[in-house]
């Protein structure tokens, strides 16, 4: 069993991983709160944007900054297009159906990525990764800080937005019951479009940051997304702040298991196990049914 000294630096890596999970998880729940759609293609869209960025930088077609911007915009455009094309037809269906449809988009993205970019060692370098500061024994770089901060900012900002602004209220109403909201005169399509666009931009930004922090390959970024779903599950897809906290806890637990050599190879299980336990515990008394009405 490692000593406390040995554990300490893993707290740092755990927080870094938690920040990454938080960014992904919060981005997903945010769209869910606003449109009732759990976008399972969030990770894949971001990954594809990152690959496009990489290609542009590798070819030297555009300056690095523009390439990064294109990644973010790609996320926004694709997600918005999906939302506009497939949002309304599926709007009245079960959330499960809506989520499954996004799996379709995810498969398309994954297939396209695998086709266009073969499996090689690629690296996406953000300038902020080169500057770092020391925390205890290890260095922490600014990209990690940005990822973490972005997750927190989005969580706080969206919570406030949804609660206090008119558009935010309209979004919550929409997620709850689209038809009634429409009859109340809310410009449903426009509000939805805003939600989709914002979520897409966030997917692009996450893809960029994650590609730099975790690695630029489709399989990794997909797995990462599934692990971050664990955090959203613990929050029962409802509370953005719980998602944030759950993500950090999941990251910490995963990292802290790592130095314990006997169970180290099971560390990837941590998000899944935590989500399962949490969900079963939270639902022990009542039946959580997931009907058309969200939340």
């Amino acid at each position: 069993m490692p000593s406390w000294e040995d554990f300490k630096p893993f707290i740092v890596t755990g927080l870094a991983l938690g920040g990454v999970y938080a960014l992904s998880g919060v981005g997903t729940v945010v769209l869910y709160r606003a449109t009732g759609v759990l976008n399972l293609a969030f990770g894949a869209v971001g990954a594809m944007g990152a690959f496009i960025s990489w290609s542009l930088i590798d070819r030297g077609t555009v300056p690095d900054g523009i390439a990064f911007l294109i990644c973010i915009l790609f996320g926004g455009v694709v997600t918005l297009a999906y939302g506009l094309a497939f949002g309304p037809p599926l709007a009245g269906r079960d959330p499960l159906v809506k989520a499954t449809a996004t799996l379709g988009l995810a498969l398309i993205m994954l297939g396209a990525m695998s086709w266009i970019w073969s499996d090689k060692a690629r690296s996406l370098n953000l300038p902020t990764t080169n500057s770092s500061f020391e925390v205890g024994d290890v260095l922490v770089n600014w990209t990690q800080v940005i990822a973490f901060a972005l997750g927190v900012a989005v969580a706080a900002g969206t919570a406030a937005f949804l609660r206090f602004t008119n558009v935010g209220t309209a979004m919550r109403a929409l997620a709850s019951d689209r038809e009634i909201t429409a009859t109340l005169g809310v410009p449903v399509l426009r509000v939805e479009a805003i939600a989709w666009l914002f979520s897409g931009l966030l997917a692009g930004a996450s893809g960029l940051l994650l590609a730099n922090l975790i690695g630029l390959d489709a399989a990794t970024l997909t797995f990462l997304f599934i692990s971050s779903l664990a955090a959203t599950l613990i929050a029962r897809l409802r509370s953005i702040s719980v998602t944030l906290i759950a993500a950090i806890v999941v990251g910490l637990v995963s990292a802290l298991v790592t130095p314990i050599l006997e169970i180290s190879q099971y560390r990837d299980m941590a998000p899944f196990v935590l989500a399962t336990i949490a969900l079963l515990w939270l639902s022990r008394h009542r039946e959580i049914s997931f009907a058309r009405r969200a939340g």
Partner: protein
Amino acid sequence: MRARLGTGDGVRLGVIAALLLFCLLGLPGMLSTYWIDVLTLVAIYSVVALGLNVLMGRVGLVSLGQIAVLALGAWIAARLSFATGLPFPIVLLLSGVLTMVLGTVIGLPALRLSGLYLALITLMLAGTITVVLTATNFPNGGSGFLGYTDTDQGGTAMRRPSIAETDPAFYRYTVVVAAVLFLVALWHVRSKPGRAWAAIRQSEPAALAAGVNTTLYKLWAFALASFLAGVAGGLLAGSVGKLFTFQFSTRESILLLAVVLMGGIYSLWGALVAGAFMKLLPALLDDWGLPADLLTILFGVGILQVLLTAPGGLAQQFPRDMAKLGRALGRLFGRGSPAQEAAK
């Protein structure tokens, strides 16, 4: 609604029997070993898809863990086969039953959830099983509980039934077992569990109010799906001999969901179509020199298409499209409806 017996049903039964005989006796002679192996996999994965088909189409539950359960079944079958000298059919039955028990035990607490939560938690459970299997690997003749050995001779292959050692013989064996399992599923659908499931899918609260023990029947559905996956796992282990965790990834679970949807969840035939999509299409694409990624993209489009326009999937859509085509052809060749003729 009275059940229509007589010529309609009789003809259908006759056609199915003829097709089955053709698959068993005619096909092996016509195809090379490679394609026989592919068809064996199609049969096996049809059974896996059948489990998901019943869960989704009859009960309205989505499980993203069916491939993980398949892996469990394969592990159990391999372990039993290496540890004991039991005959192959017993191994199949045992692996089906044990997997059913495991699947039910794991599924029981999750049944309190429904819809999206259930799907997501099965995804989590599948992830857990995958990580555990990566650590334990599959039995290959080694000793100890895990039965796994790490040598440079590559381990031993799981034995096949003595009456079905060759690939074509094992193919026939698999088709027969698959047909039996389809009948088992059909029996379920046509009798009491099927009616209970229909009530639950319609409206769970209403079913509860009507006195249906929803928990029991949901559990039954999970048990059936797990049993099917367990037996399929045994067949898979026997078919390929050596198993690796790569075949049972999360991506496979998502692909299974896609093909089951595309095949159609409201008819058991959809499971057969799903099996063909999953294992026959990649082989065909490879034969034609097309990349496998094309299939991933097509499946993605397929999910969207099915959810938007044809919830019944191909199994429902195909007969309808054929009927439409038939009508169109009829009009083309002038054999229009009496009304049209009268209008001339």
